[in-house]
């Protein structure tokens, strides 16, 4: 099995003594779409910063496609594309120059760099803006520019740190489609995100990091199977005057007049609809109350805070 990223015993202690990473292990298979989740300050960006050489590690090993960053840094970097959380391009340079210059840093000759830059700027809808100074772009365009820049040398592993932060829903969806497409074409993707809906929609495997430790490293499917109860919100054809009695289900009427029903794992929705039919309640739409992954994430991080005795305020 080929691993795109192997992290073993990774530690980071900053100059002020703060230990951001406490010896984490992480393995991401080639071709995976992987999410690294965690509350603010958990160590996500530090981990990705070390992998992409922006942060010096204090201990442990990191290998990108088998290339150790201590002994074969250049080969590791050639396989890596990085989309950081903050905008980090020259605000005075033109879009096309930013992308072709980045290709040049990877040793790609200008002629070839221009072809590659055109390909990705077109795919990301920025070709019309190629001669625009980057500072004139909208927030969403700037994010797409950073993705085009990270892909111009065709890396095998793409790291995205909060790629859709501050991006509107429509654009976020189109970026998801793009990322799914490049993942299907063989690029391994690791992302961190605060939109857990994003991780649930895109990723196959997930690690949750908190206080510098990996508290869960598993597949999304396995993680979601741990949900014991899920809450569904049902909009009914006619407003309900009182909470109906549905044997086996707990329900309430929320502030919007919709019916919220807790469905236990294994209980199935058919039984619920049989009960609703029996009460003559017609459902016109249904949705899950909270994002399933979000629910699990909050629970795990809070459990971890309790165990470690830390004051874990969870912000997602």
């Amino acid at each position, binding site marked *: 099995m080929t691993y795109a990223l192997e992290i073993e015993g990774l530690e980071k202690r*900053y100059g002020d003594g703060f230990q951001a990473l406490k010896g984490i292990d992480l393995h991401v298979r080639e071709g995976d779409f992987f999410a690294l989740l965690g509350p603010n300050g958990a160590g996500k960006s530090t981990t990705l*910063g070390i992998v*992409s*050489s*922006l*942060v*010096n590690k204090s201990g442990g090993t990191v290998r990108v496609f088998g290339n150790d960053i201590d002994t074969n*840094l*250049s*080969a590791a*970097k*050639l396989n*890596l594309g*990085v989309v*950081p959380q*903050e*905008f*980090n*391009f*020259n*605000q*005075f340079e033109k879009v096309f*120059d930013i992308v072709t*210059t*980045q290709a*040049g*840093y*990877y*040793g*790609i*000759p*200008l002629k070839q760099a221009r072809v590659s830059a055109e390909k990705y700027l077109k795919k990301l809808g920025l070709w019309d803006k190629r001669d625009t100074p980057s500072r004139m772009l909208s927030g969403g365009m700037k994010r797409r520019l950073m993705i085009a*820049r990270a892909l111009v040398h065709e890396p095998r592993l793409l790291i995205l740190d909060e790629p859709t932060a501050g991006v509107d829903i429509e654009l976020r969806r189109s970026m998801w489609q793009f990322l799914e497409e490049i993942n299907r074409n063989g690029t391994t993707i690791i992302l961190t995100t605060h939109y857990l809906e994003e991780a649930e929609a895109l990723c196959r495997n997930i690690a949750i990091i908190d206080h510098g430790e990996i508290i869960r490293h598993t597949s999304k499917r396995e993680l979601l199977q741990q949900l014991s109860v899920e809450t569904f919100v049902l909009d009914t054809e006619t407003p309900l005057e009182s909470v109906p009695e549905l044997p086996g289900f707990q329900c309430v009427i929320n502030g919007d007049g919709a019916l919220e029903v807790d469905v236990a794992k294994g209980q199935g929705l058919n039984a619920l609809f049989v009960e609703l039919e029996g009460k003559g309640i017609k459902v016109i739409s249904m949705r899950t109350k909270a994002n399933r992954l979000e629910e699990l994430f909050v629970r795990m991080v809070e459990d971890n805070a309790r165990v470690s005795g830390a004051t874990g305020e969870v912000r997602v």
Partner: protein
Amino acid sequence: MTPLALWTAFQTIVLREIRRFTRIWPQTLLPPAVTMTLYFIIFGSLIGSRIGDMGGFDYMQFIVPGLIMMAVITNSYSNVVSSFFSMKFQRSIEELLVSPVPNWTILAGYVVGGMARGLMIGLIVTLLSLAFTRLSIHNLPMVVVTVFLTSALFSLGGFINAMLATKFDDVSIVPTFVLTPLTYLGGVFYSIDLLPDVWQGVSLANPILYMVNGFRYGILGVSDVNPFVSLGMIVIFIVLLTAIALRMLARGKGIRH
């Protein structure tokens, strides 16, 4: 990276630097041309005609090599310090740090970029000086070697300054409070023979004196110090500053956490 890929990366950095300083030419190329023209008019033509000979040459001829060197020094230094610090400030330095470009190539790219601006300004000032005086070159290899090495040295200095700088003030402190006084006291406008013995001795501790005089020797054939000592000094400083800059890059001083 293959040698060809390294060459491409090096070229990319240099061309990016040249593109930067030519794009903002009113800030980079025009001011030194205006300032030096004023020096030529005021110190050379107006005051110089009353001063008479210096070192066996009329005053205008005497100060031209020093002024060219002053422009080369200032601009090589400023180019690298402002460009690299601005990349740090905007975090676009991360574009380079995530790429496989080795540290020595990054350093070489910035130094050659700084040299490109320093030498371009040197050429502009030389051409301007021809409007005021006649220049004959005594030793062309000496002129070329001195000006190239000096611009490389001050580009290295600018690079180290940018690595250490944490705010915009730090970028201007060295040029204003160190570089300018040392240049003015480095024999640009006078021969140190005019100074009392004590101050001659103090002047010999100023590294810029050697560069100005090495260059003046190449053009006029006169110098306050042995021109080969000048070259030796420049080479020693280049080796020293290169080692410091590479060490800082390896440690990620100010650019990696």
